[in-house]
């Protein structure tokens, strides 16, 4: 079992505290199946022209305390089979961005004091989903969305807001952004889905998204598969048998090479 990165320095009045959903992501990404998938997909030795394959770019959307990105960053060698990964994250919460940078720093230091490897962290950016990323920028995207069904979606912070001395209302608003998902708890996740085909790298991009039962994961997976025959979506982790909306699962979204037309006709 890999240790959970420390988040003791994080102010949970305004930043999402790691919970069951965060731990499910950590467990799933470090489980045997995903380690096998990721190590194969990003195999160090399968570059072109005998070179090593390019450094994988890991991006977390909505880093919160930074616990997930710090985990992937610190234990890159174990999870991806290589330590030369580039890590980065975004969040709409400026406090979360700052906290994430600290969490990654601490996790990295833990590794170096034990002479263990770690990835290369670019920093965190204050941004809405993948809006600031160029096309094909991401090899591995990770998102623990605001998935709770709520009557309304909270407004995103705008650049005009000053957050030097947050009030109780400011804090509540920031926390609501971390869990409130609007209709079916899917309004923000759906916006991310709209951009996934653009932002994932064509040849090896993949995404891990957390969903709860009320998000209708079966329908979500169907929708993604309908993007085209090259698109795959499978449940790769779940929180087990629990009643109500807290039943969580992680879906993996990825592209495979298009099946040749002749194969399709043969199997028809």
């Amino acid at each position, binding site marked *: 079992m890999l240790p959970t990165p420390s988040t003791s320095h994080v102010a949970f009045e305004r930043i999402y505290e790691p919970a069951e959903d965060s731990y499910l992501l950590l467990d799933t990404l470090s489980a045997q199946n995903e380690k096998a998938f990721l190590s194969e997909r990003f195999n160090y030795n399968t570059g072109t022209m005998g070179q090593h394959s390019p*450094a994988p770019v890991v991006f977390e959307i909505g880093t919160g305390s930074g616990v997930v990105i710090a985990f992937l960053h610190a234990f890159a060698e174990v999870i991806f089979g290589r330590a030369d990964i580039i890590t980065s994250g975004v969040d709409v919460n400026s406090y979360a961005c700052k906290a994430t940078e600290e969490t990654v720093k601490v996790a990295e230091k833990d590794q170096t004091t034990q002479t263990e490897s770690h990835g290369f962290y670019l920093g965190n950016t204050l*941004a809405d989903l993948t809006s600031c*990323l160029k096309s094909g920028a991401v090899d591995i995207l990770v998102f623990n969305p605001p998935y709770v069904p709520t009557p309304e979606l909270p407004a995103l912070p705008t650049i005009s807001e000053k957050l030097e001395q947050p009030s109780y209302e400011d804090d509540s608003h920031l926390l609501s952004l971390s869990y409130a998902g609007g209709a079916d708890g899917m309004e923000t996740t759906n916006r991310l889905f709209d951009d996934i085909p653009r932002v994932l790298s064509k040849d090896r991009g993949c995404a891990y998204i957390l969903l709860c039962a009320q998000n209708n994961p079966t329908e979500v997976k169907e929708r993604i598969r309908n993007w085209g025959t090259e698109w795959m979506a499978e449940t790769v982790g779940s929180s087990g048998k629990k009643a109500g909306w807290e039943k969580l699962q992680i879906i993996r979204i990825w592209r495979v090479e298009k099946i040749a037309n002749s194969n399709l006709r043969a199997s028809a």
Partner: protein
Amino acid sequence: MKLLTLNFLTCAVKTCKSSSASFPLHPKNCELVSDTLAPNPKLLANILPRLDWAALSTIALELNLPTLPENAPSPESLAENEQLTKDLHSLLLETQISEGALVCANCGHEYAIKEGIANFLLPNHLV
């Protein structure tokens, strides 16, 4: 934020996504700081093929940093060229932007960088 981040960032305004002028964003009044990282030739060699070299050269030029070769060096040529390895190590792995702004050449929007974090949240009328 590491300077290298600029190789992955573009203007967040939707209508700019279809314009090639929205990438890379251009540094304006940027304060650069340098971390000290132990040499890591493996990391450096494997980062290069993941980058947009033209965009990298543009940024290096704009920041008056050492000129880069026309194309990304192969691992072999990198191993032979100590100065180039040093320059790339410094540029890609050690250089950070602590303060400044990033400008979109397509729409002119400026993204502020404060304490090393760039702000890409848009005012309501641009979303």
